[in-house]
């Protein structure tokens, strides 16, 4: 039934690493249920039946951004319509509102690259949040933002990360990796951190004990080979440091972006195969995330059977992707997430930003 793919299947069953060629071959495979079954086999062996989720709140400090990447519908110039930059009090108000949920456990903070904010301003926000809400974990900033902080402060990456850690930051977000290819980045996001810089932030963070996430934005102008190369770059770094916690494949949402006219949204088919292939290629990642905001809830639920073991969180109020026309809700209730996971016979586990289990829901 599976023809030339039996060799790949054998490798997977015997815990052998897949090569670049294997990855490219998998992307040419239409046997979606076979791909899913293999990814699910690996997921089960590695992670069992637990599905991780967070009761969390997203905070986007500002949408004013110097980078203005072509795939983004969130970032805008300072005087553009809808531009905002939150004051410290406004940030606190958002978090206080989120704290109405008694299970609220942490924050996810990512933002535009504001042209005039100093690094100290970001440090201050983290420090205040950490003091005011000592029980909330703080995951924040992508490799792109950390690179930006190093540039605006003139400090080395390592010092930036140390200071943020001292202020209360516990993990780095996985965004901004996009496609780790200079060709793609020059076309889509020439002004922000390069592939090398993004990887450097992750490597330095890992070296000083800060865990990070990783991601891939696919379904725009990249080739399938570039997707595979991206996964291998992450895998190579993970071999070296072991500091990546979860991998998040992001399907590109074209609406309201510069690319929107040329690029159509990915199909569920592509989303599920990319999920499965990510699980199979990233043999040294424990967790793969089905980010429901981008995938939509139905696809995210099915993706849990295509290699994913993490469904992200309740979010409180998502903004970045809803600017890009995401049709999913802006937040989920915890009992909705629990039901999505229970319905497929798996075990929901509320966790913090370092995948420590806070509550197991049987």
């Amino acid at each position, binding site marked *: 039934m599976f023809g030339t793919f039996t060799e790949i299947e054998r490798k997977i069953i015997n815990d052998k690493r897949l090569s670049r060629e294997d990855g490219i071959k998998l992307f040419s495979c239409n046997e979606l249920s076979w791909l899913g079954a293999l990814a699910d086999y690996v997921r089960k062996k590695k992670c069992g039946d637990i599905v991780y989720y967070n009761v969390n709140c997203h905070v986007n400090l500002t949408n004013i951004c110097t980078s203005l990447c072509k795939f983004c519908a969130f970032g805008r110039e300072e005087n553009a319509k809808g531009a905002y930059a939150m004051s410290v009090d406004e940030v606190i108000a958002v978090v206080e509102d989120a704290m109405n949920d008694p299970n609220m456990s942490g924050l996810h903070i990512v933002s535009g690259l504001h042209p005039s904010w100093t690094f100290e301003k970001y440090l201050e926000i983290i420090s205040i949040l950490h003091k005011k809400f000592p029980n909330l974990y703080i995951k924040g900033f992508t490799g792109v933002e950390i690179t930006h902080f190093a540039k605006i402060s003139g400090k080395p990456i390592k010092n930036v990360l140390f200071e943020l850690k001292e202020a209360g930051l516990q993990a780095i977000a996985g965004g901004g990796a996009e496609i780790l290819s200079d060709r793609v980045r020059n076309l889509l996001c020439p002004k922000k951190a390069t592939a090398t810089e993004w990887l450097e932030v992750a490597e330095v963070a890992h070296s000083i004990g800060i865990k990070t996430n990783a991601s891939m934005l696919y379904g725009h102008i990249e080739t399938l080979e570039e997707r595979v190369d991206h996964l291998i770059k992450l895998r190579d770094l993970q071999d070296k440091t072991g500091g990546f916690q979860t991998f998040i494949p992001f399907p590109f949402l074209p609406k309201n972006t510069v690319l929107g006219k040329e690029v159509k949204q990915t199909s569920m088919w592509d989303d*599920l195969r990319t999920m499965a292939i990510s699980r199979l290629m990233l043999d040294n990642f424990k967790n793969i995330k089905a980010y429901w905001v981008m995938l939509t809830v139905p*696809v995210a639920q099915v993706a849990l059977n295509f290699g994913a073991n993490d469904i992200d969180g309740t979010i409180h109020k998502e903004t970045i992707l809803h600017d890009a026309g995401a049709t999913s809700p802006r937040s989920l209730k915890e009992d909705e997430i629990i039901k999505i996971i229970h319905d497929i016979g798996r075990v929901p586990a509320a966790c913090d930003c370092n995948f420590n289990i806070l509550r197991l829901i049987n």
Partner: protein
Amino acid sequence: MIIKNGINIAREKAYLGERLNKEDALRLYEDNDLLYLAKCARAMKECKSGKKVFYIVNRHINLTNICSSNCPLCAFQCRAGDNRGYTLESEDIDKILAEVKNLKDLSEIHIVSALHPEKPFEYYVDVIKQVKTSLPDVNIRAFTPVEIVNFSRLSSKNIKEILEILITAGINSLLGGGAEIFSDRVRKIICPKKANAEEWLNVMKTAHQLGIKSNASMMYGHIETIEERIEHLIRLRNLQDETGGFQAFLMFPFHPLNTELGKEYNIKRIGAWEDLKMIALSRLILDNFDHIKAFWVMLTMPIAQLALTFGADDLDGTIGEEQIIHAAGSKEFKGITKKYLHKIITESGYEPVECDSFYNYKG
């Protein structure tokens, strides 16, 4: 131990494509191994239709939404006097037909409507004649058994007489809708006034005996139990053994928005997981059906596309203008192009085949 043996037997039967009994099907459902079901269902699909996935260029016409049945499951119907109510008269149908005539490659007109409290049987016969005269080469797939039973009640003619008159007027096949869930317990709650299970099955049996083919369906995800779903499928399979007149099976996940049933029982739209599981399980249980249709209007196109890897071999059609399910909050756009269907099917690794109402290849 007995249960463990049971599931192993059921899994083996599914793998080999052997007939599943009710217990086997329940065990496979509870086993919840979605991708195993997919693998078995896909193998059965490929035995029956190889790499082909069928679609049709069709146009839906819904004659009226004024209904005497008022099923709590439905968001399309309204009562006489409601300002949302409409009924197409022969001039309206002329307009639609004039527009439809320009549709390239049209194979089928699909007519399904509410049970109008006053329109006589003759109204429907005249519509069919009007369509047939205007489009002599196009197949007419019209009426569900629920409508046929209503015609019989309205006209005091028996089912066979009704069907014969409609065949003479020009219908070529019957729709599969209105089956919902066969269980009396469920029908009393979701659709108490309309044709019951025996009547539905009897219309199909009579039609098949008269040489008219039909589809079959199930509406799930409301108040039915899993056992009731499986019993429903087995009743369809039994009739198919007897007549061989069913062409395709369609699954309708219940769309609760704007329905009384949804409100009263606080029902949420069932998940994609369940949709795909039921597609695969239906493929495996209905071993004597040639085709399983992934009806994209109800499933949404992403799930319908994915259903092709879970045993479906038919993506229904281009549809034109569908109103019944959109009244219940379906967000899928109202019609699609052949080019788009080709893309969806090709991406799944299958070969798109345009066909007519009888699965004859076109083009």
